[in-house]
């Protein structure tokens, strides 16, 4: 596992890189244009195949027999049944095959997860912000599935128990936190390198071997759970093979159609041959490599759920195959780009299902299937290659919401590569996002990874972190409302809006009358954060226990280092690196609020603390002047002012320390991340006024970005503020959004500006930044006439979404937020 990548001679790589320059790989072929058009024409829907197959399995004799099996085996049997019974669908023109759902674009329905929330919208599916198209019969089925499986969700299984009911209700009134893990864990960068180069055969052989000898690889004899684990591995591999074979058969059948044009027949036969081989056998060609990744990606989506299932460093994983194909004269860069574009378009077939209520927390329909390019090898040498560029160029052909693209930047990142990345950025899709190795690697080391493994990091979903193929990171376990903890600290643990004072949500911290110094306030704040985090950890622990029994993930496990060696599923703690990540929302608001509070109460002594709290409880209603003064005249995070940024650091540290104090039930570490999805809107609605002048109910600051309207010095100052913070504890990274008006950053000179911004930021120790290139007028027009503007991709928090899929409030934010480079 340690020699990460096969070596290719540098001279040869150079030659490959030079031939690249010949054609502009960003121009889509007719095929790619057709596939994209078909996807754009397809309505969004919900696929009920999976829950129906699951139900069929439960009713079958095999299913009844499975009930007596070990939970791991029971799960594997059900999964294998689903995989082998899915109806294969192959769409016109595609080069990489394998349907994500039974429809062209649909969400899979996961009874084990949070899918049931969609029933809230059942009678208005077509009228939602994101309309869903279902026939009457399907709606009936959906209702039926929802009702018959409503107690199967992890949330219900974990929380519909005596003494936990209150926490169950919490899901419907997310205030202090939102436990996303209830829906699923997902968020994985599986070992696609092992998959592509060794095939599932290798994992199968490992499992077979252990079962045969009744021993682990290290000689210890197997216990009952470990035996079940290895059986589960073998069973699911069988299921995946059947799924691939079904696809191959369908492709062959289609190819036999005499009406078919010859080139398409050849393509289908090639795809069929690939599916007959991979993912069980190692891939021999570039196309087989991608086909292998895709099939396992589909399987992983069937196994767990759709969020954040990511591919890792495809430029590194596929590089030997790409070089070999070129050496054999089998592949031109243009064909490779076309295959890659076809692969990337497959990622557009899936979406999540959120009811509109949930959508305020996770607006935008993203599932963030991440691809990471660029970066270094284990020794820190640059390994950017021609394929790193080609993957970006293939994306330029399609410019769709999915996949998520991530570029690693380090001091030796070649200039041509950064330029390519910036050109893609200029398309205005908010992609790629950029990560600074200089900051990311130490943060991962700090979370327990070796330097070698930290340097092999890949991005999960939007911004989260994994050492690829070695990590089980429940990277989006929960989102946390930090400003609310300040509210609770100033009101003895009770929300301002609470009518009954004994309805205490937080810890019983002292009354403000007893707080004598800013340190007292900070201490109460810390206590509230610790209290909320501990509560959250408790609930997540219940969920983890439920996952171990009801939702183990054998496919994920066979592709995560450590599991095969220990004979343990990832949900049982098998992974080499086991993490659970909690993300903070409203960080800048909290920092600014702490700063303003200290100024008003303890420095200038203009108000006593009780006076200030009364004003906040009253949402500044009789203190509009003060509120305006706080908004306009108090310094804020994001302007390069060290004294203010220090308060944001303080807030971040309080959160990070509270999170890092815990271990999950698998003995893995808790780590913090800083991003919000769109929870800053949902949480904002439930948070009272803050001392920085933010009024009750308004949205909170997003990720590591400054609070709304707080940045007055432009993007360089934002970047300075962000880079000045100590990120070593942020092992799950952060999301920092910069938004530019298109005119500011277009053309060659614009590209120069963007790349130098990135270079400077990462040189100063920046960790992550994502850049939206937008045209305000265009977005306003899109908001009022969505039909006229399909396909505008914007980056929302860490992820990209079609502008038209966003809730109006989120759209407004994107429009309003300072457009840097616009005058005045």
């Amino acid at each position, binding site marked *: 596992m340690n020699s990460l990548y096969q070596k290719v001679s540098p001279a040869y790589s150079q030659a490959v890189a030079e031939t690249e320059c010949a054609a502009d790989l960003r121009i889509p072929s007719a095929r790619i244009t057709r596939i994209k058009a078909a996807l754009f024409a397809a309505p969004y829907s919900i696929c009920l195949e999976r829950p129906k197959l699951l139900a069929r399995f439960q009713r079958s004799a095999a299913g009844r027999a499975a009930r007596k099996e070990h939970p791991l085996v029971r799960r594997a049997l059900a999964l294998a049944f689903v995989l082998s019974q899915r109806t294969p669908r192959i769409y016109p023109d595609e080069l990489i095959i394998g349907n994500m759902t039974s429809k062209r674009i649909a969400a899979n329905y996961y009874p084990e997860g949070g899918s049931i929330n969609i029933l809230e919208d059942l009678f208005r599916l077509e009228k939602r912000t994101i309309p869903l198209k279902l026939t009457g019969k399907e709606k009936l089925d959906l209702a039926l599935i929802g009702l018959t499986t409503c107690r199967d969700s992890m949330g219900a299984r974990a929380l519909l128990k005596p003494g936990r009911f209150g926490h169950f209700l919490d899901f419907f009134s997310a205030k202090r936190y939102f436990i996303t893990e209830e829906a699923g864990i997902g968020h994985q960068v599986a070992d696609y390198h092992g998959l592509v180069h060794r095939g599932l055969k290798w994992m199968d052989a490992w499992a077979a071997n252990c079962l045969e000898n009744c021993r682990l690889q290290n000689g210890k004899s197997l216990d009952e759970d470990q035996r079940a684990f290895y059986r589960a591995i073998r069973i699911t591999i069988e299921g995946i093979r059947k799924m691939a074979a079904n696809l191959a058969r369908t492709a062959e059948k289609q190819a036999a159609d005499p009406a078919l044009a010859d080139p398409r027949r050849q393509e289908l036969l090639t795809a069929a041959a690939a599916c007959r081989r991979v993912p069980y056998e190692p891939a021999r060609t570039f196309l087989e490599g991608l086909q292998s990744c895709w099939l396992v990606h589909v399987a992983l989506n069937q196994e767990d759920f759709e969020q954040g299932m990511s591919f890792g460093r495809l430029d590194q994983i596929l590089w030997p195959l790409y070089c070999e194909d070129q050496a054999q004269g089998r592949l031109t860069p243009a064909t490779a780009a076309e295959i890659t574009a076809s692969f990337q378009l497959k990622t557009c077939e899936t979406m999540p299902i959120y009811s509109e209520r949930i959508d305020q927390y996770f607006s935008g329909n993203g599932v963030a299937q991440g691809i990471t390019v660029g970066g270094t090898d284990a020794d820190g040498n640059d390994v950017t290659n021609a394929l790193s560029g080609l993957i970006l160029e293939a994306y330029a052909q399609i410019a769709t919401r999915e996949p998520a693209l991530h570029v690693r930047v380090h001091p030796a990142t070649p200039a041509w590569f950064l330029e390519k990345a910036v050109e893609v950025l200029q398309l205005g899709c908010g992609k790629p996002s950029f990560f600074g190795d200089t900051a990311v690697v130490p943060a991962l080391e700090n979370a327990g990874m070796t330097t070698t493994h930290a340097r092999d990091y890949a991005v999960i979903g939007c911004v989260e972190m994994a050492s690829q193929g070695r990590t089980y990171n429940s990277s989006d376990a929960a989102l946390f409302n930090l400003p609310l903890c300040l509210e609770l600290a100033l009101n003895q643990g009770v929300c301002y809006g609470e009518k009954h004072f004994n309805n205490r949500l937080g810890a019983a911290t002292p009354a403000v009358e007893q707080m004598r110094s800013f340190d007292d306030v900070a201490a109460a704040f810390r206590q509230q954060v610790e209290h909320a985090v501990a509560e959250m950890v408790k609930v997540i622990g219940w969920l983890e226990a439920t996952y171990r029994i009801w939702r183990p993930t054998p496919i994920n496990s066979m592709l995560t280092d450590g599991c095969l060696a220990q004979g343990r599923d990832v949900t049982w703690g098998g992974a080499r690196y086991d993490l659970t990540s909690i993300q903070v929302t409203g960080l800048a608001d909290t920092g600014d609020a702490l700063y303003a509070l200290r100024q008003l109460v303890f420095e200038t002594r203009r108000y006593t603390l009780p006076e200030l709290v009364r004003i906040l409880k009253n949402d500044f209603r009789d203190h509009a002047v003060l509120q*305006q003064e706080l908004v306009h005249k108090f310094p804020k995070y994001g302007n390069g002012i060290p004294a203010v940024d220090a308060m944001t650091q303080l807030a971040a540290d309080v959160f990070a320390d509270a999170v890092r104090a815990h271990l999950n039930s698998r003995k893995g570490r808790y780590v913090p991340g800083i991003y919000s999805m769109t929870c800053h809107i949902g949480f904002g609605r439930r948070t009272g006024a803050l001392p920085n002048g933010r009024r009750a109910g308004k949205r909170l600051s997003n990720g590591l970005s400054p609070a709304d309207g707080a940045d007055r010095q432009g993007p*360089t*100052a934002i970047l300075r503020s962000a880079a000045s913070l100590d990120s070593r504890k942020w092992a799950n990274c952060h999301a920092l959004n910069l938004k530019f008006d298109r005119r500011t950053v277009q053309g060659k000179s614009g590209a*120069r500006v963007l790349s*130098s911004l990135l270079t*400077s930021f990462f*040189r*100063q120790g920046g960790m992550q930044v994502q850049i939206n290139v937008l045209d305000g007028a265009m977005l306003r027009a899109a908001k009022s006439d969505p039909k006229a503007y399909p396909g505008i991709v914007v980056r929302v928090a860490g992820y990209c979404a079609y502008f038209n899929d966003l809730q109006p409030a989120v759209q407004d934010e994107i429009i309003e937020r300072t457009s840097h*480079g616009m005058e*005045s």
Partner: protein
Amino acid sequence: MAWNRKKDEETAVIFSIQHFCLQDGPGIRSLIFFKGCPLRCVWCQNPESWRMDPEPAFKAHLCMNCRTCIAACPGGVLLQPDRRKKDQCRRCFTCVHACPCGAQSRFGELHSTDSILKELRPEYPYFRDSGGGVTFSGGEATLSAAFAADIAERLKAEGVHLTLETCGQFSLDTETATDGDPLVQRLLMAMDLILYDIKLFDDETHQRYCGGSNQRIKANLAALARSGGQKSRPLVWPRLPIIPGITDTWDNLGSWADFLMDLGLKHITIVPYHRLGNAKRAWLGLAPGPEFTEPSPEALQAITRFLEQKGLNCYTPGEEEWRN
């Protein structure tokens, strides 16, 4: 004329320092806006730069009408948030302090070289990576020549690329370009690039629209052009605002093009008019200036073609290829 002239070795009135500017010289730049301008162009976008001294302004769109400012004004000069008895205002800026919304605001702060450097230094990495630097803008930096020269030399010593934006109305010995006002001379010679604003070729029209003669402007440009391009001399780069109906006549464009070609200047940037100036005039309580239409892309293309036929390389702001 000069406000606080005695102290101008150490301080000057700056009305703003803006980071991340992309259109006034190469790369990512910070602009220092000096207060005070010898001209009064009718289309001016920065009327807050006209006077040398700090002045109060009122931004109506920010006002919440709380009347705090009126109560705070010591002389009772402020009658309404948007009405002050101008001649009696002491410029004490108590109203600005009192206003919670930033509606009562102040254009112009006294800055020392140290305070400016302190504000600019954190931006150096962005200058370095983008090939940018600092641009002296305004207003007219040559009016605060002593201070500007001082800060220019300190920035230069720290390796910062320097640009001066000037209207050309300064005192320079036009024969040799070596003396005249020695302070202006020092300032000019510290520069890497001089963006030299030209407007109307005909002097009478110039006086009518810009509030002053263009004799000295032309002479200074000629002198700088003669010495420009030499080693350790700044690159001189003319810029021409395109004000429909005024500066965009073929006659005006043609005369300037011939003049520039004669001087051996091969580049020009045309700056399309935009309508930001009038909002600012209202803030300052000035009568609105005339409104022009913003030139169309087609018109700009025609102008570009015309100037290029005359032999000039013609650019729009931010798109220049900076060379001799």
